[in-house]
């Protein structure tokens, strides 16, 4: 399609709000804001507004009573100003933020004329090209009027049980386009002047397989908006509209100030990351690239998806979801002390997107599977490009936010259904992988089974909860030793579970995920973590084994039968009582060259059961003595030997040593001095800072599975060839960066400093 036909209006192409919203003249906005507010009033109003948003969220949770709300935190309330710019967003799923703001801005542009935006109205949308991450997330937005003027907006998003379409729950793995999925609803005025429109409510419920529950959630979302609106009006009545607006502005301005102050410590440049998602649908055997770059120019951050593969099958994600993914890591890494007032950053973020790609799909691509797939993976990539940028900051505190790839960077959806132990039909999916793993940071290890950075309170179900509700018996559920990416600071370990059918004759399994064939990245020389694995041990006959051995098996190796790896896009896979099902999810990436890890930490890891002695030797070059303590002499020797081995193919030439005292650190292993990039360990120069340092490193190409003991040969799942590239300092062998690539890919220029 030629560039001239592109309209960013949320129809074919995603909605991108213009700097100045085009709002119909009859809608007048309240813009008056007090500039001088005394500190006491400010603090009192600020606190009250935060609590109004909290009460908004609690009201939804209270009325809805939905498990996705309470356990999945799959919702979020928000408070926005008169332009739809954020004031507060709740502490629940962070990637939902861009949806609500986008929905408001679109509504102001396209609904202020007809049907008009008036006091007491509430609009509803689930359109992923306008204001939703996917069709199951329904946003409600309510204007708040004061003296006839639009003062601000309150809104929320809540995941729904079923919004209709060809598959229950909305996701059809065979979907060729969005018409196979739940329908899209561009903003409609569901509540008019305080009255819920019966006609629209019924139209809305009619599409769902569970209309009563959808209706209940709708009431919950409306009640949330109403509570927030009423309390805001009381606040305005007490402190004055200009004062309340002034506090909103100050919150945004202060967050912006903090954000800019942080940007000032960072040189201009471009940082890139890419990762792989496999299988556009059942039967496919290919890999697709999800690419993200971040360019900092002065006080602006530009995020681009250049290099992402074209939209295809069920892989796709819309711009709304993609922006939300990025915003969640911007908040987490750069606005942690600003109550996540994301507007401070949004004012300086631009999105330069190539449409028609898996990360910026155009209508009518199938997009309902975005959250567990490209969306989550983009969160991981955002964390990585932001980390690469922050690594260049002169602010030591800010550099403590630098982190590798999060765990379970694509959600291992494992849905299952059948007849339960009480004889009733059931359908659900496993929530155990919520206990993902946090990434290795620049100063500490990732938290084992520590959840995600974008869900602040990720909570796994108990084994007993699942056995109580579903006809399964867990053999084990444990942390998976070695599953975190190795590194100077290792990634958090993930977990593994195994179950057999119990009280049923048959379980039908569905999967949807990625990172089975190729793991997510490590950072600055840290290695990749374990991949996700769905597997059936056919004919394991665990009950017989228990009877014979009187011992519970606790690992795949202890099971009999034949191993069948289930593809990450599979449906209706049958498990019988003879079969054991195993699921292990991807760990988190490591940070920094593992040979730089303090041997004492490795010893502790071995003692605590987080790392095996063999992996300590292989990945970390640490030798343990018979007492289990580090043999420092042998360790030093082994590490020297292994570093030398990295240098086998290095081009030998004279390299100047830079003056380290005058250098700026731009990555764990890279210094910038006098226009040259140099190794931070041996201080020898590598290349000019205007060149891709990887071209001047020694490249060690290894099979993908060398990165972690749990990684399989990708050919188990895909036909594409992949390599695991290690880039090391040509002088001393320090591992500077790793990447997973097709053999034909040029080395990714991931740290490109300006000028």
């Amino acid at each position, binding site marked *: 399609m030629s560039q001239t036909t592109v309209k960013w209006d949320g129809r074919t192409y995603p909605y991108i709000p213009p700097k100045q919203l085009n709002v119909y003249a009859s809608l007048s906005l309240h813009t008056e804001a007090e500039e001088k507010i005394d500190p006491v009033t400010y603090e009192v109003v600020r606190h009250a507004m935060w609590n109004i948003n909290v009460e908004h969220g609690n009201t939804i949770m*209270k009325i809805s009573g939905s498990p996705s709300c309470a356990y999945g935190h799959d919702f979020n309330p928000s408070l926005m100003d008169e332009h739809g710019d954020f004031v507060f967003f709740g502490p629940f799923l962070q990637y939902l933020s861009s949806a609500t703001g986008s929905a408001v801005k679109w509504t102001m542009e396209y609904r202020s004329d007809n049907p008009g935006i008036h006091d007491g109205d509430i609009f509803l949308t689930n359109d992923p090209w306008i204001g939703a991450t996917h069709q199951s997330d329904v946003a409600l937005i309510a204007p708040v009027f004061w003296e006839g003027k639009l003062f601000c907006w309150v809104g929320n998003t809540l995941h729904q049980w079923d919004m209709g379409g060809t598959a229950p729950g909305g996701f059809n793995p065979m979907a060729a386009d969005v018409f196979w999925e739940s329908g899209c609803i561009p903003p409609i005025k569901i509540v008019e002047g305080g009255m819920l429109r019966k006609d629209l409510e019924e139209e809305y419920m009619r599409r769902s397989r569970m209309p009563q529950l959808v209706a209940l959630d709708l009431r919950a979302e409306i009640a949330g908006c109403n509570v927030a609106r009423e309390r805001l009006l009381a606040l305005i009545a007490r402190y004055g509209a200009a004062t309340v607006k002034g506090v909103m502005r100050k919150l945004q301005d202060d967050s912006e100030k903090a954000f800019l102050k942080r940007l000032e410590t960072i040189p201009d440049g471009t940082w890139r990351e890419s990762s792989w998602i496999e299988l556009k649908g059942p039967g496919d055997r290919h890999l697709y690239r999800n690419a993200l770059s971040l360019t900092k120019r002065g006080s602006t951050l530009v995020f681009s998806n250049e290099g992402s593969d074209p939209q295809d099958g069920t892989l796709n994600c819309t711009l709304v979801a993609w922006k939300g993914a990025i915003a969640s890591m911007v908040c*987490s890494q750069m606005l*942690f002390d600003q109550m996540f007032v994301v507007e401070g950053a949004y004012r300086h973020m631009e999105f330069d997107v190539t449409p028609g790609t898996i990360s910026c799909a155009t209508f009518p691509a199938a997009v309902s599977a975005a959250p567990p797939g490209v969306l989550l993976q983009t969160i991981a990539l955002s964390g990585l490009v932001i980390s690469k940028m922050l690594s260049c900051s002169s602010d030591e505190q800010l550099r403590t936010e630098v982190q590798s790839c999060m765990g379970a960077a694509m959600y291992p959806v494992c849905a299952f259904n059948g007849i339960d132990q009480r004889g009733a039909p059931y359908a659900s999916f496993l929530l155990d992988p919520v206990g993902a793993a946090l990434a290795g940071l620049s100063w500490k290890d990732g938290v084992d089974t520590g959840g995600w*950075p974008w869900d602040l*309170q*990720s909570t796994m*179900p108990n084994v007993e909860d699942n056995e109580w509700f579903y006809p399964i018996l867990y053999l084990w559920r444990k942390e998976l030793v070695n599953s975190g990416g190795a590194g100077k600071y290792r990634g958090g370990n993930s977990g593994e579970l195994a179950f057999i059918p119990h009280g049923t004759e048959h379980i039908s399994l569905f999967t949807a995920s990625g990172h089975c064939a190729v793991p997510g990245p490590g950072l600055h020389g840290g290695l990749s973590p374990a991949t996700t694995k769905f597997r059936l041990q056919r004919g394991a006959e665990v009950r017989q084994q228990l009877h014979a051995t009187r011992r*519970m098996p606790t690992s795949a190796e202890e099971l009999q039968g034949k191993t069948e790896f289930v593809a990450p896009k599979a449906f209706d896979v049958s498990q019988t009582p003879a079969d054991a099902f195993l699921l292990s999810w991807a760990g988190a990436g490591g940070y920094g060259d593992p040979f730089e890890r303090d041997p004492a930490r490795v010893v502790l890891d071995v003692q605590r059961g987080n790392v095996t002695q063999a992996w300590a030797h292989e990945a970390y070059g640490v030798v343990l003595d018979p007492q289990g303590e580090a043999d420092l002499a042998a360790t030093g020797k082994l590490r020297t030997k292994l570093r030398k081995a990295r240098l086998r193919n290095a081009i030998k030439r004279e390299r100047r040593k830079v003056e380290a005292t005058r250098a700026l650190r731009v990555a764990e292993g890279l210094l910038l001095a006098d226009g040259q990039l140099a190794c931070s360990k041996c201080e020898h120069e590598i290349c000019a800072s205007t060149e891709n340092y990887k071209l001047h490193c020694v490249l060690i190409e290894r099979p993908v599975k060398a990165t972690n003991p749990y990684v399989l040969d990708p050919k188990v799942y895909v036909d594409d060839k992949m390599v695991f590239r290690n880039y090391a300092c040509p002088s001393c062998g320090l591992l500077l960066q790793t990447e997973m690539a097709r053999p034909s890919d040029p080395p990714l220029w991931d740290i490109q400093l300006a000028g």
Partner: protein
Amino acid sequence: MPYFCGIDTGGTFTDCVVMDEQGHITIAKSPSTPKDFAEGFFNALEVAAEKIALTLPQLLQQTRLLLHGTTVGTNAIVQLKGVKTGLITTRGHGDALIMMRSVGRSAGLPIEQLLHVSRHQKPAPIIPRSLIQEVSERVDWKGDVVLPLNEEEAQAAIRFLLDQQVEGIAISFLWGFVNPSHELAVRSMVHDLAPQMFVTCAHELIAKPGEYERTAATAINCFIGPGSSGYIQRVQERAKQLGYQHPLLIMQASGGVATAQEAARKPLFTIGSGPVGGVIGSKFLAETLGHPNVIASDVGGTSFDVGIISNGVPLTSSETIIHQYVFFMPQLDIQSIGSGGGSVIWIDELSNTMKVGPQSAGADPGPACYNRGGEEPTITDANVILGYVNPDNFLGGKYHLDRSSSLRALQRMADRLGMDVVETASGAVQIVEFHMADLMRQMTVQRGLDPRDFVVYAYGGGGPVHAVSYSRELGCKTIVIPLGSVASTWSALGIQSADLLHVYEKAELLIAPFAPERMNTIFADLEEKGRTQLREDGIADADMRFLRTVDMKFRLQIHRVEVPVSDGTLQAEDATQLMQTFADKYDALYGKGSAFKDAGMEIGVFRVAAIGTIQRPALSQQGRRGGETVVTHRDVYWRDLKHFTSTPIYDGAQLAARVRIAGPAIIEMPETTIVLHPGSEGQLDGYGNFVIALR
């Protein structure tokens, strides 16, 4: 004359309340003795004994009941100072305690810390993986044995732990609460090898699904067990030596007391019992005064605690978070925020705005006015500057506060904000009072309760200072400062007024329509357990009460509602009535139309609270002399008037009942100060409570 003595050990003081047969109350305070809290316990009793002209042995010989609230268990877990503990659990599931359901990295963190993900960390494990022993055995959800206990593995596990010289062994198996045979077998194996070992089986503490929370509770019980039980036994023995002839009763977080013997086995249930006494005391007083709905608010030095009494019953919760560990136990629902007298006033550099707390100056160095090296201004400093608190009469004149230090500390703050020092002080107090009101609002509105239907009880050193402001913010009309000077030892009074309480639970999924036969069987079983325990406690059958409840929910929705169940043998009509009661209660809590009735209802947990009522004297009306005694006038800053006004200062100890005092006024009590803002009016009632009406 028989006495009832309540002793509450706090961080700084040990409080004692003694009630005689006529319902007269004597209070005493003595410094707490962290090296051995037992010392402070008896010191406080001795001070009380002197006040009624007795020796300590004389008092104890005449004491009918000795009731005690201890923080020994809480301290041990908060400071992670317990014994080396081992865990024996189901093979394949030893990591449940390590994984902490993932949420252990952030559970219970205040919002500012919750948002800072790069700082999230799971706490150091109470039991390291090296002391977690997995044993082959497996029971399923029905209680059927899938894999019998492998006794050789169990033997090896026990021997390993004994070799490691553990001092406590926790035993927790999957579904052990449905079928405890494996846990019991392992316990007896432990005792065969080590008869003195402190052992806890998970099923004895908790009978609900959720292996992480149950195992965490069991681990914590063992971790603090030997220390807590040692302390309790020391107190009990010493009391006995001094002539006390009855059982020592220990306060539980559930709001009732248990015998020392029981508490020594299950010290877990004493964790978090600190603020419970205050709420139970409020309940006791509310019954006398006829207040069905009470917000019990306690302003201490570092925190603000709120509990709710609705229709005469304190609200409870079943989940506790301590040190990021989540565990189940029946307890009063008391929420806290870091707002108190010691809360530090500070400036957020970037936005140049004023913040208060949650950091506290604590007792040492304390507020600037203590002159103990504290440089940062606190709420107490602000109260001194505004004239609310008399620097010469703080805690009954025990301490002298230095107003000039307060002024200096706050002036620095004011300069940076470009404000007047008094405005700054007043603003800080306003901010902290709004935070308090917000917590109270959350505790009521979000539970479907209207705060305007509630009377606020305000105690703790700072409650009476701030109550008028925070209560007005909520729209409450009445405040009670309980028993005047007793307000500062209110928890001890609460402990003194508590009954014996044991809570028994059984988790079983029952789907509506409920079979009454099954319910009868379960309740009969739970009540029998309660009766046996109460008899062991020495309670006569006539003094026993059994309150039945079930946790119900609509299927496909998550909210569990505790619904009362009628006594006696249940019939089909009772089961139907139960469904109606639940639906009504659900509507009341979560709003009309919030129930998804089509999905049907289910019961998840059956519960019996076995209460052993302790007969006590009723609170006495106090004959008081004196009159309206304005001791002096002082300049006090009133926010509503925006200036200092010469304000009457009353001596609370001299005040007569039913003399109306209109704000603005200050009433100085021996241990606290009542601040009557303009628009409020108060008087003492016949019991000695100061009751404030808000306009």
